[in-house]
């Protein structure tokens, strides 16, 4: 089930699972849909991955454009550096989030999407900001540019480690009194809750398979890389496909593919083919770097390091803790989905979660990739590292990069740090063996 595709920018063959090729095809179709908006007349909603209300937007036939995903695509295509500098040139501080600046810079340079075609202007900005204050400022900046309807959907923070009835009630009221009426007005389509229920039912089916895939990393060797590979896996469900038949098909297909790998005792597929012997099992906290994604990944698989669990793949939903979109409680379910995303959880919850991952996935250590741009993730990570290290007795390490700013990816430093870290794990193992 492995296919080889060639790209114009990479002379060497990049080996992909069939599921990766399928995912790429879905993303291509999505960007074509957006680019065709001037012809189709579809309305466009821009919104964010954490707190993405895709099923709701589908009820109003909006095409969902996610600026974070656009920034990621710009990073992967080595375009984000120029966009960021463009944004800084027009007055944005060098200190702030590079996702924002990549998006603003892309707009300033014509708003060309990853398929080389112009992205449409949004008809509505759905400011569903979960776990990150920067989102609010991001859409205020976009609102100045597009001057279109902007809908605030405020998700309270899980500061005390629980979702309360008051929180859910607050969010449902926002949906019924503000979000839905405005979406009706912009789209011209009346809200149909049964339509929403049907999409949520489909979401839950896809979520079941996604969770199975992510948890397959508990087997040894892990059949997947739950960070680098995981980013491919989460793409459809975190983006514009949750609630669709496409998503159901993709995750069923992916699951079958991974089941086959488990049956064959295989490890993950990397861009250079099947990974060799699994030597290190890691839990990773924090987003990846996208400007040097393949180079970054290679630093791991060359050493036999596989990521068995990651927090980043929970930033668009923590399905592995049991949450599923619930068609019987549609609006409450959307609220609970937003409340539960990873960055909306307080630090003690994040520590518990990583500790549990370390134990359940039998990891050798925790690696934190601290992102310069992302205070939501990064503020407190040094304490998280100490706490997890203390509780598990397993070594932890800390590296620093950025999401889409190539200026903050220092390959030699990161490689050096990773190699030292792997040696540390070896020493720890030797110590355990000696003690036994």
């Amino acid at each position, binding site marked *: 089930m492995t296919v080889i595709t060639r790209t114009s920018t990479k002379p060497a063959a990049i080996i992909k699972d069939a599921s990766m090729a399928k995912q790429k095809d879905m993303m291509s179709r999505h960007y074509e849909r957006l680019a065709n908006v001037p012809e189709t007349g579809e309305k466009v909603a821009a919104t964010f991955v954490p707190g993405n209300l895709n099923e709701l937007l589908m009820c109003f036939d909006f095409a969902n454009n996610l600026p974070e995903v656009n920034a990621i695509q710009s990073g992967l295509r080595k375009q984000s550096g120029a966009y960021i500098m463009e944004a800084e040139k027009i007055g944005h501080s060098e200190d702030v989030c590079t996702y924002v600046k990549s998006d603003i810079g892309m707009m300033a340079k014509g708003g060309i999407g990853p398929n080389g075609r112009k992205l449409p202007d949004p008809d509505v900005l759905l400011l569903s900001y979960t776990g990150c204050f*920067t989102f609010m400022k991001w859409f205020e900046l976009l609102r100045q540019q597009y001057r279109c309807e902007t809908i605030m959907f405020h998700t309270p923070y899980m500061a005390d480690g629980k979702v309360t009835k008051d929180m859910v009630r607050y969010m449902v009221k926002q949906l019924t*009194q503000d979000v839905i009426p405005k979406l009706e007005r912009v789209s011209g389509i009346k809200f149909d809750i049964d339509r929403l229920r049907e999409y949520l039912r489909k979401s839950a089916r896809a979520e079941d398979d996604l969770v199975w895939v992510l948890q397959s990393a508990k087997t040894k060797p892990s059949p997947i890389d739950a960070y680098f590979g995981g980013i491919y896996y989460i793409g459809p469900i975190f983006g514009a496909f949750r609630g669709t038949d496409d998503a159901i098909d993709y995750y069923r297909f992916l699951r079958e593919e991974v089941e086959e790998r488990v049956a064959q005792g295989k490890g993950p597929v990397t861009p250079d083919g099947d990974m060799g012997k699994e030597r290190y099992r890691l839990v990773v906290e924090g987003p990846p770097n996208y400007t040097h994604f393949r180079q970054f990944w290679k630093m791991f698989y060359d050493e036999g390091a596989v990521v068995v669990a990651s927090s980043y793949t929970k930033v668009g939903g923590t399905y592995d803790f049991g949450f599923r979109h619930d068609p019987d409680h549609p609006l409450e379910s959307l609220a609970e989905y937003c409340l539960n995303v990873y960055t909306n959880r307080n630090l003690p919850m994040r520590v518990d979660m990583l500790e549990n991952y370390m134990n359940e996935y039998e990891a050798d250590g925790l690696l934190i990739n601290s992102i310069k741009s992302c*205070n939501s993730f990064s503020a407190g990570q040094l304490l998280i590292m100490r706490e997890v290290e203390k509780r598990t007795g397993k070594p932890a390490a800390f590296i620093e990069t950025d999401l889409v700013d190539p200026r903050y990816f220092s390959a030699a430093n990161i490689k050096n740090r990773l190699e030292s870290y792997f040696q540390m794990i070896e020493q720890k193992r030797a110590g355990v063996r000696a003690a036994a």
Partner: protein
Amino acid sequence: MLDVPQSATAGIVRYCEDLFRDLNFESARAWKAAEPGRKVIGYMPYYIPREIIHAAGALPLGILGGGDQLEVIHGDAYYQSYICRIPRSTIELGVTGRLDFVDGMLFPSICDVIRNLSGMWKLMFPGVGSRYVDLPQNFEDDVGGVFYQSELNEIRHWLAGITGRPISDSAIRASIVLFNESRRLVREVYALRVEQPWNVPASELYLLMRAGLVLPVEEHNQLVRDYMASVREQQRPIKDNSRVVVSGAFCEQPPLSLIKAIELSGCYIVDDDFMLINRWEKSDIAVDGDPVANLAYAFLHDSNSTPPKYEPDLARKGLYLVESVRKNQAEGVIFAMASFCDPALLDRPILQDILKQHGVPQIAFKFAENSGQMQPIREQAGTFSDSIKLWSGT
């Protein structure tokens, strides 16, 4: 307690400066020690419903980092280089025992860094109650208002747990009365500065406002009265300064030397957002009726604008700065923002555009609470002031 020299402006300012420089919070410690069972509740910028803390019989204590006097050693071990300074110096205050008398900490929803600090506090100081205060970004009474009332009631319950006694509605009403008086006095002294900026230097007003974050409100109210009475009896030389609004320092505070540098460069600061909490509500909070509902109503409908707070109306975005310029007869705006301050720095391009549309001159620079080199600030602000004087009429 520190001695308060009466009447003379210099004495009041000296007293406030002593409070400002005291990173052991001796005055709050003394307040707590004066009666058994007293509690102190720390809070971070930019807004906390202090009325409820006061009604609980506790002292609200503003924690604004360590300024330029605190050497941060432990705090730096908790933060990467690209994160602002206030959380690391606040951690330093905690780790070094300077906050060991504080019974509870409140962290308002200002940004991701302070939000995450609330969780760090739970992990690092498990013996101290800590709470994140989720402020609504929906400003409808029956949506955001109801949510905020539930949040206020949770704070009320949390405080009652710390003090060991319930907080009555009548106690909250009495506290609202006191804080209404506080805000009236603060508005009055700000208005006095607008009228006579030469007599109310920004550095003095700054220290007077900082004192309001550590003193009991009753004591601070008297201090503000005394300061105004004293100032009104004197006449300082009038300078040919430009009148400016300083914006962007609503959380991490600039060093006092930076405020003085702006003044020395030829600017009268006629409005600022240094300590918004002292005048967060723009008019009196209603006293009659449900006091929690009144606090929520005031937050939703009668509070100041600041970057961490969403502006639902596109047409109103940033106008608070233009209105401040007009109302205070300012000639320009200085954006002084803490390095790595996301809400301030992300908002800045929008605010700059709006000022440009309204023909308001502006400059921008960044600072950290421990910035030491003021000469570049002085030169930049001085040039700005000169340019206003030379060309604002053209």
